[in-house]
């Protein structure tokens, strides 16, 4: 009884991991899609979301397999970057995801850690795939990245393997509140510093970051935030001589 329960528990864990790895395998494509939505609103000059979806889908479904079989036929036409992404990054990760179904994972912490490192290395290999390799006996721009990328793939696989072979801790618990508000605060700071200036941005970011814990007392936080803002507004531009905008642009003009 206990045994079957344990088994079903690992089974559900594994399916979650498999889904996670599949998502990881198409994460760059999803990221580009989200990025491309901005072009509808007129930000940036990338491809529209429609083209992004179709080009990646064809690359994933049709382009890459034909490239593989085409290479047997001796065809050496230049492959598009979508097809390369599918070949170098997505397919190996899909394979890993499928293999995960059949594994008993002894230490999820190591296993997932190793696989994600592998994914990072594969991504780096893809990102460096357009670079020139060895030219005679001298290194090209792409040689060293490829060397280290390959090494990291191997190391990631090794770490994942230890996660399969030796007992170890499972996945750690992730909190959401701290990371979320700290990140929102950082992103807000980055977006607001140019138009709004140090005084407004620093104070607002302070208050956003303070939301990262439920223990914050607001009056106290506001006083400290105001003091810190004042301190930074004096320290950076005046004492250290680093020029930065102080007040919102629309007020200055």
């Amino acid at each position, binding site marked *: 009884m206990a045994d079957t329960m344990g088994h079903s528990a690992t089974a559900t864990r594994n399916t979650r991991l498999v889904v996670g790895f599949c998502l990881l395998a198409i994460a760059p494509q999803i990221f580009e899609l989200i990025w491309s939505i901005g072009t509808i609103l007129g930000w940036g000059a990338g491809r529209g979301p429609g083209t992004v979806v179709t080009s990646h889908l064809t690359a994933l479904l049709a382009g890459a397999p034909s490239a593989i079989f085409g290479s047997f036929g001796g065809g050496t036409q230049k492959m598009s970057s979508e097809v390369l992404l599918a070949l170098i990054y997505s397919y190996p990760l899909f394979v890993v995801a499928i293999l995960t179904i059949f594994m008993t994972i002894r230490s999820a*912490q*190591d296993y997932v*850690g*190793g696989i994600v*490192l592998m994914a*990072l*290395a594969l991504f*780096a290999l893809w*990102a*460096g795939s357009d*670079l*020139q390799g060895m030219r*005679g*006996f*001298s*290194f*090209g*721009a*792409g040689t*060293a*990245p490829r060397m*280290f*990328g390959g*090494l*990291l793939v191997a*190391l990631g696989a090794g*770490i994942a393997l*230890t996660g399969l072979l030796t007992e170890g801790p499972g996945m*750690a*618990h992730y*909190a959401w509140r*701290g*990371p979320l508000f*700290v*990140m929102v605060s*950082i*992103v807000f*700071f*980055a977006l607001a*510093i140019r138009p709004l200036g140090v005084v407004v941005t*620093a104070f607002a*970011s*302070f208050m956003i*970051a*303070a939301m*990262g*814990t439920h*223990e914050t007392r607001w009056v*106290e*936080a506001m006083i400290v*935030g105001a003091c*810190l*803002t004042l301190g*930074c507004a004096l320290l*950076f531009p005046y004492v*250290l*001589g*680093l*020029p*930065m905008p102080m007040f919102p642009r629309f007020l200055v003009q």
Partner: protein
Amino acid sequence: MFDLFHNLGLGFGVVFQISWWSPWWLYGLSLPISINILMCLIGALVGTLVGVLPGIGTVATVAMLLPITFGLPPVGALIMLAGIYYGAQYGGSTTSILVNIPGEATSVVTAIDGHQMAKQGRAGPALAIAAIGSFFAGCVATVLIAVLGAPLTKLALAFGPAEYFSLMVLGLIFAVVLAKGSVLKAIAMIVFGLLLSMVGSDIETGASRMAFNIPELADGLGFATVAMGVFGFAEIIRNLDAGAEMNRDLVQQKITGLMPTKKDMIDSTPAILRGTVLGSILGILPGGGAVIASFASYTLEKKIAKNPSRFGRGAIEGVAAPESANNAAAQTSFIPLLTLGIPPNAVMALMVGAMTIHGIVPGPQVMQKQPDLVWGMIASMWIGNLMLIIINLPLVGIWVRLLRVPYRLMFPSIVIFCAIGIYSVNNAPVDVILAGVFGLVGYWLIKHDFEPAPLLLGMVLGPLMEENLRRALLISRGDWSVFLTRPLSAVLLAIAAFLLVLTVLPTLRAKRDEVFTESEN
């Protein structure tokens, strides 16, 4: 020998240099100040503060203050950053002894016996011995840097690209061997760091590598940006996991009688000496630096003590040895940086970042071309140690009071300070977002039990390694055996291979883990 005095004289001359300061708000009036002494004092103060406060590490602080040094003269900037590093070793002992909260990883073992002493009402002698030990170790280490500096530089100048590459491999292997936790994971982190260092323009061909046509990435990932993310932001996020309120039961009674008794002095003198020697050696070796030095010296004291059961119950040797060792190691770890240009640990990696910000390429040529910088820094260490003993002993009450600052107010302040700091380096908002992303990466790394320090080391050494590898192979016309046929390079690689084999052997692994076990008790 004469050279040594000459050099130290030059160093002290640099430190005591008087310059006239005429700020605009004094309307033409000038004040005589010594910028370098001032920087040394600021560094020592900030270092003590960081050491006292748990939740901010040395690496994070140096990363945070890196952008600030932008507007300072290079000598002053480096003196200040160095002061933070060894200052934190002093400050860390204070909270370990009084509150049983190590403010710094390097004083974790000090807490074991130090806090017991405080509970027995002997907090004063414990603090005094920690400070005296640190001061003694600091003085010895300063002399050691001065003595070893010149000959090592001469040796380094004889190095060709092949030797340099092998030396860096050895350094990275040392970092793996002396790091805590899995060897495989540490190597993976180094390679990850190397890979990150490849982003941006290629040094030789100028081709843009892995930059995705993002203009901010064309110059490569900023070193300060990654360090601030992985150490600063990630640490904050991680600390928030545990809840902002940390358990801080202060030892409330007044500290009376700072002076240790005669018996204390007799007991601790050999421990201080042993700690200093061990710390100095471990500091020079790349990898662990101050952290492993303190653990190792505590283990050593326990091993050779006549009555080991006293340890953990307030043995003064258990305070004296690790405190001397961590301070010695913190300072001697400057030796490989200043002479060979190779940073042995994460803080030194940040010092490389600080040097590059000021346009100084670390390496043996620094000592010849800018002797004032190197010797000024060495001389400032001795002065800094003197300042620290004053800052720490009579003013100990003030520092303890600082512990009452709650983390819920501290962490947003650190976030904002970091954000403004990163922004000010290049006036680039993208850098701030990148640091945030690396904060999340760092948080993930912590959750999966990866050490971020080797990553930073790999990132700093990456461009150097690639350059020397390429150069060595170009000279040898693509012949990889050059690394083995040149004797010096072969020896270095052999040591590296030997070390790696040793760590994989099970018996030695057990020994290595034993050194770190004290932290879990």
